[in-house]
């Protein structure tokens, strides 16, 4: 019964989406405020229906209702409750339903928080959002219905892929999806602005929090995914430039560019068409990512269940969304009012540089990801583009960005003084040079690129700190520093935090890539192996039993000198449903790096093959990502930037007439039914 309710709710949602996608436009055309306001009702109804559907599917998973195919294929009665619930979005159909749930949730949030938006504009935004919901609901109902029944129902289910039965991966898809879908809001705002034919600084003020929110979720989702790969797959790697990973990385780059360019629109009323284009591109890259992952057109390490029919549907939807919005852009964007001006040396220019490098990098990743498709299409055989390509591109394109990143926040808006900024960051330059030279000297010149990376990280951290110091006039008036510190807004703290986070990530990547020690050995109980000055003693193995698996657990004692540091207990698990092995790496994080042990297979005579690592500073990668997220959240929590609550006060003070919220015969304000 529950399954039918869910299915029915999805069909109802489809009709609400159709209403919401059409009526506000009709209302705007006929100047009928009641029809415009129908957009609000429609998105709430969509959310209610999507939540009902998602709730019933969750109920089916929790109660192990195997008469639903989706549950029978992906669940099992013995699975821990957490994974019964995460199983809802751990499969194709459920994940799409989750996507729709988020899409409708964001629609409802825009309506709720955006009560101050002009009614006509809000109606248009919600109409675009409803159109997206409509597309995805059709996809679900026609190709991937999660509520399909199975008769007769089996007694037991297949179980969830054990690799996915992990806390990190339980929350990785939801985070990523919230990020992907968050970008849909920026997209809807962009398309609505194109239809209305006007972009104002106020528009940027509404869009930026959404872009920032999406970016925070994307950061979290990507970081969780790579952390999972690091500890669960047991290869010690954390990023592979695999198409599926790139699929999430490209929208991240575009979102980062978007939230920076929106600042320029807000502050200087410039870069308007570019920002609109970025908003469209960012969401298109999210859709493209979904297409790449779900269609299986590209060979990926992280293969998902794929189906050509589904791929074709997403491709058609992608073509429609991207083609439609870009056509609209080509038609409407040139008509937008010309931009405001800023000096060549200014914060705005620094943000332009940021945008050029971020979007070029996104384009290069896109080319590298899709290149195998083209080669195959032209019959030149199957190829893969390997990590060297992407690493090369990252080094070449991100280095100048990081150099500019150190300087940018020190430049004044509109017209900056490079000399003053340079004066402030001289210490940062010294720190960076010293860090680089010391490393080259310590390693006798063996790690020039590492020295360069370390120098960049040091430069960035130092310039972030110097920026704060100069803001509070720490050196000019040390006595008043505390007062200055209190005056720094949360948005500014957020920026510093996120930039420092990038530096910390860079530090982690550089050091761990260069100085990881690895040993692959066969050990008998009592044997000792030395890795990077730590001695790992193998104590033997013992069988253990988990809730739905059995495992062989290896025991290692790790010593530094004579002192026992810790014991590591990696496992090799065998799950019963579905029958599968997984490796559970044992990781002990030290301040200087991670001790990492994996147990392989019995090699006869009580010996086991094992892999031992010392990975210096690798935790910095995820620590940095966390700092970026905290930075984003700090910035979001700034009262001046709260979602959908532009005060409008600051705008009114500006001399530019365009800064004021647009009024005119077309606009009907505040008449919410």
């Amino acid at each position, binding site marked *: 019964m529950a399954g039918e309710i869910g299915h029915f709710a999805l069909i109802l949602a489809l009709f609400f989406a159709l209403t919401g996608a059409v009526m506000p436009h009709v209302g705007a055309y006929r100047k009928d405020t009641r029809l415009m306001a129908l957009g609000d009702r429609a998105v709430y109804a969509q959310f209610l229906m999507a939540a009902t559907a998602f709730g019933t599917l969750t109920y089916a998973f929790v109660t192990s209702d195997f008469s639903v195919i989706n549950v029978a294929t992906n669940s099992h009665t013995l699975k821990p409750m957490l994974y019964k619930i995460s199983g809802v979005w751990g499969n194709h159909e459920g994940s799409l339903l989750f996507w729709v749930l988020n899409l409708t949730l964001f629609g409802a949030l825009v309506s709720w928080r955006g009560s101050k938006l002009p009614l006509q504009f809000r109606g248009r935004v919600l109409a675009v959002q409803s159109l997206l919901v409509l597309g995805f609901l059709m996809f679900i109902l026609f190709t991937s219905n999660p509520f399909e029944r199975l008769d007769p129902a089996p007694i037991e289910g297949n179980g969830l892929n054990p690799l996915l039965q992990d806390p990190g991966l339980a929350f990785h898809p939801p985070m990523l999806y919230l990020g992907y879908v968050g970008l849909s809001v920026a997209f809807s705002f962009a398309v609505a602005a194109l239809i209305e034919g006007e972009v104002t600084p106020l528009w940027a003020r509404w869009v930026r929090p959404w872009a920032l929110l999406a970016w925070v979720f994307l950061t979290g989702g990507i970081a969780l995914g790579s952390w999972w790969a690091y500890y669960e797959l047991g290869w010690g790697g954390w990023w592979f430039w695999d198409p599926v990973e790139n699929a999430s990385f490209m929208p991240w780059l575009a979102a980062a560019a978007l939230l920076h360019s929106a600042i320029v629109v807000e502050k200087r009323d410039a870069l308007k068409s570019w920002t609109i284009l970025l908003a469209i591109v960012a969401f298109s890259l999210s859709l493209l990512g979904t297409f790449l992952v779900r269609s*299986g057109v590209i060979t990926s390490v992280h293969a998902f269940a794929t189906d050509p029919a589904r791929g074709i549907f997403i491709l058609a939807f992608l073509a429609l969304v991207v083609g439609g919005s870009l056509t609209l852009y080509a038609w409407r964007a040139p008509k937008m009012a010309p931009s405001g001006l800023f000096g060549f040396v200014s914060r705005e220019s620094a943000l332009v540089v940021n945008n050029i490098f971020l979007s070029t990098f996104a384009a290069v990743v896109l080319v590298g990801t899709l290149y195998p498709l083209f080669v195959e299409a032209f019959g030149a055989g199957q190829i893969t583009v390997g990590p060297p390509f992407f690493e090369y591109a990252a080094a070449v394109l991100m280095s100048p960005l990081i150099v500019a990143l150190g300087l940018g926040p020190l430049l004044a808006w509109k017209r900056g003084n490079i000399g003053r900024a340079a004066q402030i960051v001289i210490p940062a330059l010294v720190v960076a040079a010293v860090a680089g030279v010391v490393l080259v000297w310590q390693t006798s010149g063996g790690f020039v690129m590492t020295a360069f990376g370390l120098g960049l990280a040091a430069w960035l951290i130092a310039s972030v700190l110097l920026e704060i110091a100069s803001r509070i006039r720490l050196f000019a008036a040390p006595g008043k520093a505390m007062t200055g510190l209190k005056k720094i807004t949360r948005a500014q703290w957020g920026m510093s935090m996120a930039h420092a986070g990038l530096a910390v990530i860079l530090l982690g990547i550089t050091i761990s890539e260069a100085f990881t020690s690895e040993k692959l050995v066969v050990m008998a109980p009592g044997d000792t192996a030395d890795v990077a000055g730590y001695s790992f003693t193998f104590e033997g193995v013992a069988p253990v039993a988990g809730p739905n698996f059995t495992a062989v657990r290896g025991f290692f004692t790790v010593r530094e000198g004579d002192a026992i540091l810790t014991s590591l207990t990696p496992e090799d698990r065998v799950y019963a449903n579905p029958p599968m092995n997984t490796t559970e790496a044992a990781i002990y994080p030290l301040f200087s790096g991670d001790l990492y042990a994996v147990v392989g297979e019995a090699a006869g005579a009580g010996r086991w093959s094992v892999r031992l690592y010392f990975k210096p500073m690798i935790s910095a990668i995820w620590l940095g990502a966390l700092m970026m997220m905290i930075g984003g959240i700090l910035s979001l929590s700034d009262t001046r930037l709260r979602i959908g609550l532009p005060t409008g006060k600051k705008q009114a003070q500006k001399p530019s007439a365009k800064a004021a919220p647009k009024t005119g015969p077309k606009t009907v304000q505040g008449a919410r039914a």
Partner: protein
Amino acid sequence: MAGLQTRKKQRLVVVSLAVTTLVGASLLVLLALGGDSLSLFLQPSDIKDRQVETGQHFRLGGLVETGSFSRLDDGLTYRFAVTDCLATQPVEFTGLLPDLFREGQGVVTEGELNSSGVFIASTVLAKHDENYRPPGTMPKAEGQCSHPNDQAAAASYTGG
């Protein structure tokens, strides 16, 4: 005035900067795509067709042939054969095999041929497909060889 500029000049600067970066990036792409960051993705029967040379780096995909798996005495080196049901390619790998590695199932390896025609794999990729059969490993002539393990592992009801 040095600070403020005309709108035209500003646009010129921004556009030329963007074009320079884009051209630079395109050169970079051409350069890198021509180099060794590209690797072919082949199945065993392609190896003879394409006359792959010794030492050329490529990816090999296919099914692990049933009954071909063995471990050498050092406990770390494994030998197995990858097949696409038309041809079979012997593979040697030193390291820890990924969790999903099993006879009769799909595998993707990366490495090169040695002088005696054995594929020396530097990486054996872990695949985690929901249906336990990654794309790119489907045999070209599936009917010609049987892989009982594979049949059993595949989901018995596939939905949709």
